[in-house]
């Protein structure tokens, strides 16, 4: 396949970056006027925010009722954060807010306007070197369909910041706020545990 082939993901990213976010959002929301077409209300918060996402300051217009997952995916083009249930019941949308794992579907963007937000896109180093947890997943091929993967990885990265040397059981409890519909938990845990080892600089034995 040609390198120039346009994937759906890059197409959507391009559309958003190209400044036609309004039409793309309308497509994604089945022409719902609520996210993009809403008139500003008087009083309350300013809509224009300067969010700190993956170390960058991103200026973005955010509706008062908008969730962080919506802002990340549909305003900033960061579609690595997945929306599974949209009800804090699956964990696919997990991101780090000031290094703490949170469900991006269940937090208002305005509530985290002063915080540091990190998504799966912000894990790899600038030169493309993967984060150790990402590398662990690649090494062990932990996921099946991998829709839940970015949530699992972010939950793990957040957990390891407080518990750098977990047992397999402790890590399982640490990522117990994430579901995998493929029921691939055994391999996922193996991969994430490998990621924890790599984070501590443990060589493959």
């Amino acid at each position: 396949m040609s390198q120039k082939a346009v994937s759906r993901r890059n197409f959507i990213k391009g559309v958003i970056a190209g400044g036609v976010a309004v039409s793309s959002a309308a497509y994604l929301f089945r022409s719902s006027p609520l996210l993009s077409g809403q008139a500003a209300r008087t009083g309350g918060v300013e809509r224009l925010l300067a969010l700190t996402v993956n170390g960058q300051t991103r200026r973005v217009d955010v509706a008062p009722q908008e969730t962080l997952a919506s802002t990340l995916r549909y305003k900033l083009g960061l579609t690595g954060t997945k929306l599974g249930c949209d009800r804090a019941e699956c964990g696919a949308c997990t991101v780090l807010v000031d290094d703490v794992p949170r469900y991006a579907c269940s937090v208002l963007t305005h509530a985290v306007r002063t915080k540091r937000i990190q998504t799966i896109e912000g894990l790899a180093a600038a030169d493309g070197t993967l984060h150790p947890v990402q590398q662990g997943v690649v090494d062990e091929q932990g996921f099946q369909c991998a829709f839940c993967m970015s949530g699992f990885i972010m939950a793990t990265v957040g957990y390891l910041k407080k518990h750098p040397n977990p047992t397999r059981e402790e890590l399982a409890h640490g990522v117990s706020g994430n579901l995998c519909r493929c029921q691939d938990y055994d391999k996922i845990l193996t991969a994430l545990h490998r990621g924890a080892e790599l984070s501590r600089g443990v060589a493959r034995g």
Partner: protein
Amino acid sequence: MAIVHDVIPPFQLFQPASVDEALDLLDARGQEAWVLAGGMDSFDWLKDRTKRTSVVVELGQVAELQGIRENAGGLEIGAMTTLTDVAEHAGIRERFSLLAEAAGLVASPQIRNQGTLGGNVSQDARCWYYRRGWHCYRAGGNICYADTPTAVNREHAILGADRCVAVNPSDTAPALIALDAQMVIRRKGAERVVQATDYFRGPDIDITRMTVLEPGELLTAIRIPATWAGARFYFEKVRDRQVWDFPLVNVASALKADGGRIADARIAVGAVAARPLRLQAVERAIAGRPMNDETAAMAGEMAIQGAVPLRHNAYKVPLLRNLVRRAVRGGPPGATT
């Protein structure tokens, strides 16, 4: 799973920077204002559109509502302190481990990272008919859909039902009741303090509300007196999944021993009634008795007096009896985490 999968309908958002500012807002907009703490309960209502609001007051920017402070020999916990912070706080773990344990068993890590202690005790009733927007008693209607011959009511109440058979599923509430905690409630220009037991309301008093909070009022802090510091604690939560689930029944107890006898006790249970219940009759009955299996068995039998199971939740009766028995007898929890 929700049927509506869409963005939340528009509302006006306020983010006060101080308690006074928040109270001013609630004073001006109290009838229509929706107070948003961690939001773990609120977002379900708003996304499903089973409840709507035009004004949201988000409290995340109010620093004075967060954190745990020493207070008159006990602790004062800001209402916006996250459940993770409660579960991990050294002082709580050392002196009031009952509360740390209860907070650590709530839902999932991400929810504990965002959900607050004040929100956990102020959450709405657990009943899928009510939460799906059925026009039941609690929603202002004149029927209970969970108490009909064909209703699915495995998780509903066995005690204290009055038209509504929903339960209060809070895990921290029984622990706070067992610790004689006090709820600090403020409104513009006034403050009142109520015992944790009295913070919760049953349907016999007000079928549409879970707590004594009136419009314009805010739960600002929860005080844990020194009374029960270091007592013998027991907390157990039984649920279908080992994580990320509401309790089928939970129990919290604090006991002080005098020789081999129970000098004083607090026992509270949750998820069996529309409000967490302090079992005062049981507390009085076991005071002065030897701390043994016989006393524990008696406590268990007393706890289920008056229980009226629905079609699918009769299992809660022996479950409650056995949990109260364990809470008095002590020892490692049998089925928790």
